[in-house]
């Protein structure tokens, strides 16, 4: 009998929650957003999702072979990165751009650092930002949603944030008739990246993540709260120039970013207090870029910037050790 017994030290039981289950749960939570993306943007969206996901998994496998490391595609993290990248692309992005993005995300964003757990920046956002800077034309050509079966051809248009920025730069005022259409914004009937347009689909997925306890409230609440409060203060100061908080909330990538990108465990702080600081930083930078930066949207940049600040935040928000008066100094 004795040669068949495990002799490991305690604890002898485990929660059953494993990395691959976490990754899978996040993938499930993005399915509503993927569905809406395909509904509004049709086959191009499906193509982007497929190219990015398959591409990311393939590059992960390629890296494992090149670096002689363990093949870890079963943990689901590469597939998740691919899906997140696709959701952050404009519907008219060509297939080669998506494939290039998948390569950048996995190789530059993740594997050069040592793979899962070691990357300081969110890999999907690294890819998105590299593409945005390198291929500004393809990455900012937006088309209006053309729901499946509507028979409407996709028309080139601007995102609500882009429309606002152009109007403010030209006239110093909000564009005409901007206040209308919040219902459309909420369901996702507007121009934007394929995964960011539908608040309702994203919130559905976020609820699932809360229910499964994959994410906690701190990052989304402080991120979105900061955008609403700071954006709201500007709006109160000059409502003819600055958009209102609801506009900030529903247009652009705030909801996708706050619930699914900023909450990436590897690149965000580990303590609740740290998450609040991090979320606040994300929100502040987002509003500043949106209102005063060169780009109409700032969520990706804001998250990447705060990713860089994460080790620092972690250092200053260490939990208080039981029985000590102050935090451990270092």
């Amino acid at each position, binding site marked *: 009998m004795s040669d068949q*017994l*495990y002799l490991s030290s305690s604890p*002898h*039981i485990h929660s059953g929650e494993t*990395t691959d289950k976490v990754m899978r749960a996040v993938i499930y939570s993005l399915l509503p957003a993927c569905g809406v993306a395909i509904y509004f943007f049709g086959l191009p969206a499906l193509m982007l999702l497929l190219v990015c996901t398959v591409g990311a998994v393939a590059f992960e496998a390629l890296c494992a072979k090149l670096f002689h490391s363990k093949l870890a595609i079963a943990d689901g993290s590469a597939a998740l990165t691919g899906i997140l990248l696709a959701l952050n692309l404009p519907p008219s992005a060509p297939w080669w751009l998506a494939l290039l993005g998948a390569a950048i995300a996995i190789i530059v964003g993740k594997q050069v650092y040592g793979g899962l757990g070691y990357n300081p920046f969110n890999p999907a956002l690294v890819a998105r930002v590299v593409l945005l800077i390198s291929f500004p034309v393809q990455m900012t050509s937006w088309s209006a949603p053309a729901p499946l079966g509507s028979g409407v051809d996709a028309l080139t248009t601007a995102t609500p944030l882009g429309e606002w920025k152009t109007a403010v730069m030209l006239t110093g005022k909000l564009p005409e008739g901007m206040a209308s259409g919040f219902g459309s914004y909420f369901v996702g009937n507007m121009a934007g990246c394929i995964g960011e347009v539908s608040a309702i689909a994203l919130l559905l997925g976020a609820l699932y993540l809360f229910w499964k306890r994959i994410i906690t409230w701190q990052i989304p609440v402080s991120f979105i709260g900061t955008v609403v409060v700071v954006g709201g203060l500007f709006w109160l100061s000059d409502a003819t120039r600055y958009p209102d908080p609801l506009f900030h909330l529903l247009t652009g990538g705030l909801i996708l970013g706050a619930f699914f990108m900023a909450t990436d*465990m590897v690149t965000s702080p580990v303590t609740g207090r740290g998450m609040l600081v991090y979320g606040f930083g994300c929100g502040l930078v987002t509003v500043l870029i949106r209102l005063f930066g060169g780009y109409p949207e700032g969520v990706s940049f804001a998250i990447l910037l705060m990713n860089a600040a994460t080790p620092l935040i972690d250092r200053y928000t260490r*939990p208080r050790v039981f029985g*000590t008066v102050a935090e451990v100094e270092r």
Partner: protein
Amino acid sequence: MARLKTFPGGLHPPDNKAWTAAKAIEICPLPEELIIPLSQHIGAPAEACVAVGDKVKKGQVVGRAKGFVSVPVHASTSGEVTAIEPRPHASGRNLPAVVIAPDGEDEWVDDLAAADPEALSVEEIKDRLRDAGIVGMGGATFPAHVKLSPPGEKPIDTLILNGVECEPYLTADHRLMLETPGKVRQGIEILRKVLAVDNIYLGIEANKPDAIAQMREECAGSDIKVEALEVKYPQGAEKQLILALTGREVPSGGLPMDVGVVVQNVGTAAAIADAVTLGQPLIERICTVTGSGVNEPKNLRVRVGTPLAHLVEQCGGLDGEPSKLIMGGPMMGMAQLTLDVPATRGTSGLLIFRRGDIKVREPGPCIRCGRCVSACPAGLLPTTIAAYARLSMFDETEEFKAMDCIECGCCSFSCPSLIPLVQTLRYAKGAILEKRRKMQ
């Protein structure tokens, strides 16, 4: 409803107590051979004082205490000493033990002296506790008379009885409080006298409402505060229990007496009652035998020295092929290599997992999910300390307060990457102690 008292951090693993919680304690019959280890407590092992061939009676001292932090060990039945030799011990090594073949008479030693605790002085009571071999029965097995003799500069004003039993599966203390509440109460009154305190708490996890009701009834009209605590592991860890009940935080590196508190397990209180009022030494205890690998899980009253295999027989034998034998609970118990190991004074449970119930998987990289951090009741960063320990950077592990780890195992339990966190922290603690020894 008012929020139940508790501590920050921790988690609630599936408790699986339903298997045995409703089962009355059964008396485990004597085995063919009792193996009485001379080391059943923290501190110096006892020294054998009988010879092979000697006839001994139940309660007779077979191993004398050596030093202050030590207690004697006793024969747990009458019979003949058949060997004094190293035998398998719960620590994994073979350690000296007195082996007794029971004669079936189960005859008590003659000079047991019953006494009225009221009539005894505090010193007389403590002598009785030491002579009876009373140790902490929650698992730590620290000699009670030492714990009850704090140095003069550490005044004690509070006594806490630990009836939390937060380890999953175990129901020994639960049944004890249900079936012999009077014994527990008697023990509390003796402790009250020894420590001269009137601020007394009895903490019980809220998942044992019957035990809470029973103890409240038993303590009705007294100043003993029977408190229901939130069901969360490790609620029964000494420092966490003190914080939950009194709001006092034992300083880092300190002991409960630093905040004026002494904690004793309810099982210890019951043993104290027998030792002082009846003069009976600690020769038996309640042990929960449970798990998927046992046919009929039970709570047993077990003589010290009973081989674990005998306990399993009393519970209908093994159910299938076992994959893990654990002495104690699943969070902090010790895996055993053989059922030849005897139950001792600290054996609160025997947990057996069937083949297939223990999955062995490769750990993955840390994904910084923070679960270990939010679960750590000591406020540590387990994954950070473990990462330093893996690089043998022990100065850093010390800076990050590795020595404050209480080894509850919440970090390893919750880690989705299956990283052996607490195991690595134990390793770091060992290395830090080694370093400190060398520096002296």
